């Protein structure tokens, strides 16, 4: 379903060559090139939106890269206590990471269910994904409250709250996307052949999850060997 039949792309060069040879004498409308069936509209990974989302991920990935560059550049050069309150506590952050990653699985499952025409299961799966995302946000806010300083109190606080805040904003936008996708799925917008929006929105959510791994590594783990 995703890949074109081999003959569709593989034979195209011959089709042109044949058409070109016939150019002089044939009526243009009756070219020998066999008519190829092409999908119409937003067809999964053939849609422009899929590529557009990949580009968005490239530039957003760069944005997070620069955020982490800033953190590491200052972390290796600063003379202050880093982080100010001592090494980060790992268990809760690690659990939260697993929660966020597991939500990606349910987003993937939602798309699979839609393609098998099991709309109810798809909506349930998306609901679970959204709930896991909400739990992640809750735990993250709990961690924010656990710090004795805020974003304006010192350099580490500015970096910590800005980096995790950027990610939290992406999670919130991602959650809005997931809720919309769930509603559209429930309304029966998608079927076995038309689900590009699910694919594209899901890709964005996977990105938000993967980028968290880099943030987690940088903020929770690197102090153990840089400090």
């Amino acid at each position, binding site marked *: 379903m995703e890949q*074109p039949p081999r003959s569709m792309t593989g034979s195209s060069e011959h089709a042109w060559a044949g058409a070109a040879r016939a150019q002089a004498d044939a*009526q*243009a409308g009756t070219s020998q090139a066999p008519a190829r069936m092409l999908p119409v509209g937003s067809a999964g990974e053939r849609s*422009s939106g899929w590529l557009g989302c990949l*580009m968005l991920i490239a*530039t957003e990935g760069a944005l997070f890269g*620069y955020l982490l560059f800033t953190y590491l*550049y200052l972390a290796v050069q600063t003379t202050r206590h880093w982080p100010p309150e001592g090494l980060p506590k790992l268990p809760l952050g690690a659990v939260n990471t697993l929660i966020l990653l597991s939500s990606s699985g349910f987003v993937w499952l939602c798309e699979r269910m839609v393609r098998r025409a099991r709309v109810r299961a798809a909506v349930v799966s998306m609901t679970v994904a959204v709930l896991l995302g909400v739990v992640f946000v809750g735990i993250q806010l709990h961690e924010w409250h656990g710090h004795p300083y805020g*974003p304006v109190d010192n350099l580490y606080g500015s970096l910590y709250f800005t980096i995790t805040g950027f990610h939290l904003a992406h999670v919130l936008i991602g959650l809005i996307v997931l809720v919309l996708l769930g509603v559209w799925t429930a309304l029966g917008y998608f079927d076995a052949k*038309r689900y590009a929006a699910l694919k594209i929105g899901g890709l964005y959510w996977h990105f938000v999850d993967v980028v968290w791994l880099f943030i987690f590594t940088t903020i929770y783990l690197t102090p153990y060997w840089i400090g």
Partner: protein
Amino acid sequence: MSDTPAFAKPGDPPGTLRLSRPLVRTPFDAAGAERLAHIWETRPGWRGWFSTVDHKTIGLRYLVTSFLFLLLGGIEALVMRVQLAQPNATVLTPEQYNQLFTMHGITMIFLYASPVLSGFSNFLWPLVLGSRDMAFPRLNAFSYWVFLFAGIFLYASFPLGEAPNAGWFNYVPLSGLTYDVGPNIDVYSLGMVLLGISTTVGAVNFVVTLLRMRAPGMSIDRIPVLVWGTLTASGANLFAVPSVSLAFLMLWLDRRIGMHFFDVSGGSHALLWQHMFWIFAHPWVYVVVLPAMGIVSDALPVFCRRPLVGYGPVAISTVATMVVGFVVWIHHMFATGLPPLALSFFGAASMVISIPSAVATFAWIATIWTGRPVFRVPFLFFAGFVLLFVIGGVSGVMTAAVPLDWQLTDTYFVVAHLHYVLIGINVFPVVGGIYFWFPKFTGRMMSERLGRIAFWLMFVGFNLGFFPMHIAGLLGMPRRIYTYGADMGWTTVNLLTSIGSFIFALGIAVFIVDVLYSRKRGPIAGNNPWDAPTLEWTVPSPPPPYNFAVVPTIASRHPLWEGRMQGEHEEGTHEGPRSRLADGYLLDQGREALGTTALEASPYVILKMPEDSYAPFWLGLMAALFFAGLALRAWFFAGLALVLAGVAIIVWLWPERELIQREPTPVARS
């Protein structure tokens, strides 16, 4: 031909959209063209004006808007040149001078040099690629509106005498709250983040358009060099713009929220800003020149009556310049006390850039040398560009040498270098490009006589104005001083520079007169007045709203010169494939375009293109109001604009049955 549209199955109710269709060839016919015009044309009046997504309209808007910014930045420069024409002048106060040189830099680099090239590319890409529009027409409109609003935003505090005043690279701590308490730097910071949105979505659109929207047969080695240039610039923007957007956001957070990113006394590092700024700004230098070099690589050969010498090497060196361009940013920071190892590496990398640049230069010279040059106005601008490029390139290699840079940094030598590069490689190709494509833009030719006058005024004025700046720099004149003493020995060179700058401005004025006159009264141009080889010249001038009535099939880099070039078939045993322009795939069931594969450009998908929409305008407006709210620290207002922007995005992205983003209508299930 029967009356049934070729792709509808008999018995389908009107308006049926199918999940898949056979792709068959049809010849061009006038009735079909009329139907397409009806499908693609923009509504008349203000509704169409605010809602159009036609890439040609958007491209021309980009060109006109960025040219207005060029004039604004030019007037700022002339005022500064009046101040500097004589020693100890008092035309400007030091603070006014600071704001003028800062706004001059911001205007020319961010509001002219890159947007003007986006204008060319927006107008030309679908036409040279054989497509009906860009991949994301609404995103294209959004990109323009945000650019316009960001330009207005950056100028908002200028009338109050509170314009950005810390230089276009805006170093901290000078731009921090300690030394700059007014709104000046806030406007610059937030305006740049806003402009970054426009640049980024524009870049996304160009890259996806290249990957999906080329005519069948236009494989990756058959695209024009302008497309290579803009593609490279767009790819770089995706990775470079976030750096500067983040730096400016962090600066604003420091200034107005009280964070400590650039607070050295709080444990930060003094060079963080410089790194983040130049990681962006050096690739940006290539963003504003590579598409312009592409203009020359495509248009110069037309006036040499032969294809470009070395298409492959030129295309590769375009990409190579950008790749190396990402690892040279520290040559802007040679004087900051970085370790010698870093200086050596970045100095060497900076010199390596001269290799791909030289490849392109020799390709242009060889094209002129082995061709039969026709000395029309565009040729003059392109040939002039080659000379200025060499001068600017040589002074660039000089400053890439660390010891010499220590001597020359922050002097007028650097000012001379960057103006040779930016005016030589951007303004000259742009003006030449406008002379070249003006017939396609408007359907009329520009004046050959006025064009020659404009060229010689610009060329003589430019060299008279900017060459002495090298000398001023070698004599030790620092940049960004608002005046100088009569005993410094800089009086003559400065007077020459001021005279030259006014002659250059006169040339620009003649060019503008020519544009305004020829737009209404120039001789009518046919489809292809220059006998050029690429696809944009197959369609009428100006092109119809749908660009191509039938999607052509491309078999070479020069579809309009096939069968006319010497030695064309030396290697092949037979005639080889031919491009087909008069017949092709008719896509006329609503707004449709043909999507092709990324490398070979084989037909891949029939894309449904969006109708005109107000959403881009509203989203752009709300984004601008959000940033205005931040600048005024009106948090509720900013939050409201943010929510409304979110609503605009949801309306925009709501799956549409017309675009087959949702399940199709039941009758059409196949």
